[in-house]
């Protein structure tokens, strides 16, 4: 089965944004193609066009030299184009089998046989009769893939498939995709993760600001070269931090931090002790779910624990709530940008006002001083290069990177002495990650301290002066970052010990 898919001069313009600008690409079966680009580069729009969800303003699609019209998802199905979306298109309350049968014209018995064959062939293990909401993300994705396979697809498009998968699930997925490719299915793999492109794909097309900027064989590419193409500027390496905290004063001292929870999904913290100097960055590594979010909440004051002592600038603050802690010049950037750090339905300036109840004159006699808040917000947007100057924009329309810049900016503009952040660059693209990292390094150089809790070891090694690992609610000994290697961290994160 030989399939040739040609996209010719596809354009799609949204108000205020050119999502696709005369995109032309060629694909042939037997290979896995990567479509690479930052968030907002136009990849998702392109695949929505290919799957019939969105109609292009201009351009044509040819499948095996035949001009095909993709006016609806049904058209894509008819032309054997299968699509696995980043946000699953599954019905959570229906069973796996019901999800599969809903768009199949086959009889139930026939379909069940077919699905069982597919399960066996690709070694998928999924119970067909349980509701989808009981499945893990990896299993849900398999259901989506099976749904495509039922229709004997010629083309299979995967949109950011690994963003929700564990490492093991990712490996399994790659094995399956390579199998599909061998069987003649044309695979288009959309991602912003560079390592995946090199380990999985044969050819790579890079998109930037709606345009295709390069098409090449992955053998000729390296991570750096792809990153540069993707971001469009020579990234170089970000600047190295100048350490100047060695002789500075201690700013934070935590002793005897214990936390016991009745909730089985929370982790108990056992006897944590650490301190932090002015201008220092402490990195806390660990596999997620080992007590990081509890530790963050205790530091921020969302959880108040008994008998714990938190001395911050010579004051005992362990009983203070988050707002009071902010008044003592602590700042926090939580893990979940959408549900913890910002209210997506509120406008940018409203979100800015949320954590500044007292420090400024935002509120007078119970009334909101909109003008002051907006001026202040504009300052944050420009100082922290958020990609908009419209403070009236609802926060949900900001991309992840811009939202994180806004959140960090909101925290830093009040010049706090300590910033605690939790996975500050989770899910962001290279450009935004570098920006956030430089910002965090800058505040250390200005003599402010930071605690970075992160599951990304590269990030920690880049930012931290000292590093420790949290495992099952306990902290490892705190090490000088220059003596730490990724291997050492890996051992500690798995519960082993080093010496």
């Amino acid at each position, binding site marked *: 089965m030989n399939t040739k898919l040609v996209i010719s001069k596809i354009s799609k313009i949204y108000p205020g944004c050119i999502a696709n600008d005369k995109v032309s690409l060629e694909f042939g079966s037997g290979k896995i193609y990567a479509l690479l680009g930052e968030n907002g580069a136009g990849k998702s729009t392109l695949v929505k066009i290919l799957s019939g969800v*969105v109609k292009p303003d201009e351009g044509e699609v040819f499948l095996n030299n035949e001009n095909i019209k993709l006016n609806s998802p049904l058209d894509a199905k008819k032309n054997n184009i299968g699509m696995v979306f980043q946000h699953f298109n599954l019905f959570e309350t229906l069973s796996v089998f019901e999800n599969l049968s*809903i768009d199949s014209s086959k009889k139930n018995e026939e379909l069940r046989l077919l699905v069982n064959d597919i399960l066996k062939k690709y070694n998928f293990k999924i119970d067909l009769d349980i509701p989808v*909401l009981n499945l893990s993300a990896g299993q849900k994705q398999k259901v989506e893939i099976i749904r495509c396979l039922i229709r004997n697809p010629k083309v299979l498009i995967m949109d950011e498939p690994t963003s929700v998968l564990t490492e093991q699930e990712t490996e399994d997925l790659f094995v399956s995709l390579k199998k599909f490719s061998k069987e003649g299915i044309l695979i288009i793999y959309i991602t912003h993760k560079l390592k995946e492109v090199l380990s999985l794909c044969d050819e790579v097309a890079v998109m930037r600001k709606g345009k295709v900027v390069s098409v090449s064989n992955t053998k000729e590419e390296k991570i750096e070269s792809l990153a540069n193409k993707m971001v469009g500027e020579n990234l170089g390496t970000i600047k190295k931090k100048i350490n100047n905290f060695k002789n500075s004063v201690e700013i934070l001292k935590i002793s005897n931090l214990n936390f016991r929870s009745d909730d089985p999904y929370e982790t108990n913290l056992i006897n944590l002790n650490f301190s932090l100097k002015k201008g220092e960055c402490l990195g806390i590594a660990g596999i997620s779910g080992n007590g990081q979010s509890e530790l963050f909440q205790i530091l921020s004051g969302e959880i108040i624990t008994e008998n714990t002592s938190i001395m911050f600038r010579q004051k005992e603050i362990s009983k203070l709530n988050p707002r009071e802690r902010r008044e003592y010049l602590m700042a926090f950037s939580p893990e979940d940008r959408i549900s913890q750090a910002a209210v997506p339905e509120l406008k940018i300036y409203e979100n800015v006002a949320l954590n500044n109840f007292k420090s400024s004159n935002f509120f007078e006699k119970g009334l909101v001083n909109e003008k002051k808040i907006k001026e202040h917000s504009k300052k944050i947007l420009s100082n922290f290069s958020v990609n908009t100057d419209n403070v009236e924009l609802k926060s949900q329309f900001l991309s992840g990177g811009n939202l994180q810049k806004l959140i960090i900016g909101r925290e830093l503009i009040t010049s706090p002495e300590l910033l605690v952040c939790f996975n500050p660059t989770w899910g962001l693209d290279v450009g935004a990650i570098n920006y956030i990292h430089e910002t965090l390094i800058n505040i250390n150089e200005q003599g402010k301290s930071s605690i970075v809790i992160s599951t990304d070891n590269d990030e920690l090694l880049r930012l931290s002066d000292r590093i420790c690992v949290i495992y099952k609610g306990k902290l490892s000994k705190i090490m000088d970052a220059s003596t730490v290697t990724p291997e050492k961290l890996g051992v500690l994160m798995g519960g082993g010990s080093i010496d």
Partner: protein
Amino acid sequence: MSFDINFIGILIGAIMASSVPLILAACGELITERSGVLNLGVEGMMIIGAISGFALMVVTDNLFLAVMGSMLSGLIISIIFALLTQSLLTNHVATGLALTIFGIGMSAMIGKNFVGIPGKEFPLLFVNLKESVPFFGPIIFGHSIILYFAFLLPFLTNYFLKNTKVGLIVRAVGDSPTSASNQGINVLLVRYSCILYGGAMCGLAGAYLSLIYTPQWIENMTGGRGWIALALVVFATWSPIKVLIGALIFGGITILQLHMQAIGLRIPVQLLSALPYIMTIIVLVVISRDSRKIKLNTPTSLGQIFYKEK
């Protein structure tokens, strides 16, 4: 008062009759809600069905036309709701409330000329068998065809949702209209159909009241039954069989408390009148406690406005 066995049979027959409008309206609304649409206009659609059924009966002297007309009028007024919420994307709750207020006012206006006119006798089936079988006779026989339909409806609805392809599509749309649309399902068509079906069932429920249960027109004669039907759907966690149980309990306690009032028990009348509401909710909450089932049966997109990406 003698408690002979036939009396209990008659009592049960009366309970069944009083629960018919609730079953019809609730089963209709259940389908609407399963597609993700929250139509709070049940009371309004019911009362429009009641007046148009009665008016048609008076004008045409044909009961069949009257029943069909009541369903059609319920359906027509639900089109207003469908147009507003599905095509013009208005808020479901506000639009539904407006529909109820509109229906009550409209029915009062049309009904002015029909107050005090006696109804026509509705044909009952198997009347001769009613007396011949002790106890079961009054329960099983001597009812209108609409009652038999109403008692079949929850089972049909259940079968439709669980075992048919169209039922599956309705549930899928209620779960996630966006996913359904991406799968090539015409969400608007499904939701329009479900809203219109719900409207027709509410119209039929109204006709049962004005043509059979109390065959006459009284202003505001639905008396909040539409709201009870709505509550039944939610407290029955969108399960048609539990809707039937809930409707019977409600009807049962309504009739029983009337008898208790007649006996002259020393319990405040207000408390007795409130009893059906309280008991129905308690029972339904108790039998619907399985949180897993609640999650599976609840239409995730209920009340959410859906619009298609262009």
